[in-house]
């Protein structure tokens, strides 16, 4: 019985120690474990000198092209509170559209614009057929209205 008790203590001690170590490590790492910064985080904490990833929604009506070089796409990433303009030359992912979640990677210049070398699309946790999505929109029950009507279907 005492040996079993000792093994029980050893097992729970090992797990507790590992859990504590992991918790402390993640506490120290903080938000740097996150895959991207939000525009509000950049507004509050300043812009890092290195290349970063910026995540948020593509602001409705912000998608356009550079006046001098039409191959450059310009849009604004927002999280509802702050907004960061982005410039990108390259092929956008299929899911990219206004109102969609995106992650743009690059450096933020002196003018506060992110010059992206990679743009990734995020998708959310909702899955439904197109008819259901259309019906929800027709009934005005679409969750936040932040999503533009699908333009590529």
């Amino acid at each position, binding site marked *: 019985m005492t040996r*079993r008790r000792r093994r029980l203590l050893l*097992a729970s001690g090992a797990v507790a120690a590992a859990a504590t170590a*992991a918790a402390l490590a993640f506490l120290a790492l903080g938000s740097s474990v996150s*895959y*991207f910064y939000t525009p509000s985080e950049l507004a509050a904490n300043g812009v890092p000198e290195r290349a970063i990833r910026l995540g948020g929604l593509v602001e409705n009506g912000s998608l356009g092209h550079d006046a001098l070089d039409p191959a450059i796409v310009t849009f604004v990433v927002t999280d509802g509170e702050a907004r960061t303009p982005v410039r990108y030359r390259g092929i956008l992912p299929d*899911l990219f559209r206004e109102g969609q979640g995106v992650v743009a990677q690059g450096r933020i210049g002196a003018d506060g614009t992110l010059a992206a070398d990679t743009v990734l699309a995020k*998708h959310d946790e*909702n*899955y439904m057929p197109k008819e259901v999505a259309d019906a929800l929109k027709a009934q005005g029950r679409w969750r936040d209205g932040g999503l533009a009507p699908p333009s590529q279907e």
Partner: protein
Amino acid sequence: MKIDYANPVRFERLAAPATAVLAFVAALALGAGLYLAFFASPTDYQQGAIVRIMYVHVPAATLALAAYAAMAAASFTGFVYKHPLADVAAKSIAPVGAALTFLALATGSIWGKPMWGAWWAWDARLTSMLVLFFLYVGYMAIWRAIDDPLRAARVAAIVCMVGSVNVPIVKFSVDWWYSLHQPASIFRAGGPSIDGAMLAPLATMALFYACWGAAMVLTLMRAELAERRAARIEAAAHPASRLA
């Protein structure tokens, strides 16, 4: 030694028919699940037909994580209470869990390229899932590295239990940190956010994975027990080479 014989014999009597039933249900569920997934389910309003990868990817990932939890529970039982079957169970879960984790990583990568625009991203969910794969592989390596099964079971159990810290990290990574991977769609507050027409193939495929996984684990356990019995018989026949 007595108890070491008693339980495995009873186990064999239960496991043999159970394996057959599980394999049969798995075959049925696989046929029905693939039909539902490929032909009888709608395309997604955003992802189109690519959404069908979900039916392979999500149950594999869920079961990969559940298998690790089961392996940790078996390791704990074997380590503390010395149940004769617990170590065999933990050892047998590992390759099945590793295969499921690999499948989740591979199908996730195939899904990520068309939807996100990237095969891989070092976000918290993907990285912790890769760590889960390494934990499985490391656990299997320990069993192979130590010859004495009693000692191997002890060391492997400790590593497995310590590694179980990763299980909640995988599950909640998408809630704790911003990630490229989407948040939970099924096991979340407020119920699933997946349309019923898509939940049916998902549930059928989950049934397939669960039955297949259980049948595989039982088969591996029976093989392991048979191997140990053979080793004991051999040791009895050649007392000189007892440690072999």
